[in-house]
């Protein structure tokens, strides 16, 4: 079983998000970048599924040289080798196209992503890769099992869940529940340095989305405190003033 895990390099979850250049650029100054937490879940499940020589794991990232620390982290956690498509990830469509091009040349049985990256939150790459390769895709999965040449996934739906059986190859986006994130051990960290990391030049893609500007949510006005022994007052305010109940 050959598994490809698509990873992205994102700001650490504790990052306070600010912008520069008249709110047109994300301010990366002092920001710690990490392996996207959902991709870490996908990778961790891939490791569980291939334990005992049942398969190999390749990680792929679309990014510039600065993402190599994150790629090495994925290798330290347990991927066998890595591919970096040498380009700035313009948007999800660009990234999906590059990954799909790579898969056309190097087929895999199972292609995993995180349910979304925590910077742009599009949940787009999994379904786009699926569409570009005419493969089934499930965007947000809570469980993943494999058996021979097919997989079983549980996907979240509003107010419930759904179980699907899908033959290889397919694409799935991992969410919480799929696996507990694995922490690299010393041996992993040592071996990550020498595991193969192939750099591939990007294919040409026509883009159809540009980010023009960013803004942070409007600040809320000062909190209105209600005395702890007067809960009725809160209900009155929520009904009469805020009009939400």
């Amino acid at each position, binding site marked *: 079983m050959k598994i490809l895990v698509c990873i992205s390099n994102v700001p650490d979850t504790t990052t306070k998000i600010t912008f520069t250049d008249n709110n047109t650029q994300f301010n990366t100054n002092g920001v710690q970048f990490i392996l996207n937490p959902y991709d870490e879940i996908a990778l961790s499940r891939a490791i569980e599924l291939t334990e005992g020589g049942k398969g190999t794991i390749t990680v792929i990232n679309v990014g510039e040289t600065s993402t190599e620390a994150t790629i090495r982290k994925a290798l330290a956690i347990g991927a066998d080798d890595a591919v970096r498509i040498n380009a700035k990830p313009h948007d999800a*469509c660009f990234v999906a196209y590059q990954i799909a091009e790579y898969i056309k040349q190097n087929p895999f049985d199972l292609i995993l992503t995180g349910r979304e990256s925590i910077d742009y939150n599009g949940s787009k790459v999994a379904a786009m890769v699926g569409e570009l390769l005419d493969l089934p895709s499930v965007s947000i999965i809570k469980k993943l099992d494999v058996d021979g040449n097919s997989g079983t996934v549980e996907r979240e739906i509003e107010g419930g869940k*759904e179980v699907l059986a899908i033959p290889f190859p397919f694409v799935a986006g991992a969410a919480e529940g799929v696996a507990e994130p694995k922490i690299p051990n010393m041996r992993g960290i040592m071996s990550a340095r020498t595991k193969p990391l192939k750099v591939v030049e990007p294919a040409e893609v026509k883009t*159809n989305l540009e980010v023009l500007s960013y803004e942070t949510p409007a600040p809320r006005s000062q909190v209105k405190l209600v005395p702890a022994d007067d809960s009725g007052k809160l209900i009155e305010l929520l009904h009469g003033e805020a009009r939400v109940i």
Partner: protein
Amino acid sequence: MPVLIYAENAAGKFKKSTYEAVSYARAIADATGTNVTALSIGGVSADELASLGKYGAEKVLNVSNAQLKNFINQAYASVIAEAAKKENADIVVLSNSFSGRGLAPRIGVKLEAGVADGAVALPEISGDKFTVKKTAFSGKAFATVQLTSAKKVIALIPNSYKVTEKQAAGQVEDFSPEIKQTDFKALVKEVIQSTDKVSLPDAEIVVSGGRGLKGPENWGMIEELANLLGAATACSKPVSDAGWRPHEEHVGQTGIAVSPNLYIAVGISGAIQHLAGVSSSKVIVVINKDPEAPFFKVADYGIVGDAFEVVPKLIAAVKEYKASA
């Protein structure tokens, strides 16, 4: 060149988020001087289909093919893209639901369209420039994106655009799309629907608990308050990590982002990752015994007090309010 809106249904009924998407499509059509065509897939009754007219759909395409009974995004995306081509639609609108997230990217690829997922406001259109405001950085920010392609796909976040009545013909037409068997490689084996609970992404009110509740055995009062308010229950990350509550309830940067009208946080301090997931809530109420809890800084209303004293009083107050209403 009408606006095509994919009208998602749950067990044959359209959801509020679907009517929001129809209202949103109507507003775009009004701004650009065109019509709205809605597309429904699966077993939906004639009355229910006609209800889309109330929010501004001139035409309703109804696909009732038995093979499309279960949601398979590959097959549904083909049908929606085919409808868009047949109707010559430049803009496709759908809800940014779990299903919508699996559909929008595929439709985007099929139509060579830019995809604005997570849209929170109407697009601004001036001449050839088409921009949409969407969520970014897991709720910590918004991005304004320009879609430069001829066709556009917009996935609208539930509860971010108001359902607006605007009667139109709502003429229902049967639509028999071409069915590609290769779209059905994924097979739905089982659907587990919990009907007794309000679904978190759709909820208008959310009652959420944190570590301040001390243990899973204390969730009874959270559930009681939620039931009284017709709310969904949620929790913070430490709570789901500890296994007190299921992962599906985890709200925050690495969980679900919600945008309810009212978010009530009980015993949650308000770590930056949690705040990211709730920043789009219209009104935030925080109940915490620590007056320095960071959550109070982004709250509209607050009670400084012990949850075990405050929540039961709140439950009594809601009961009293409901009895008098």
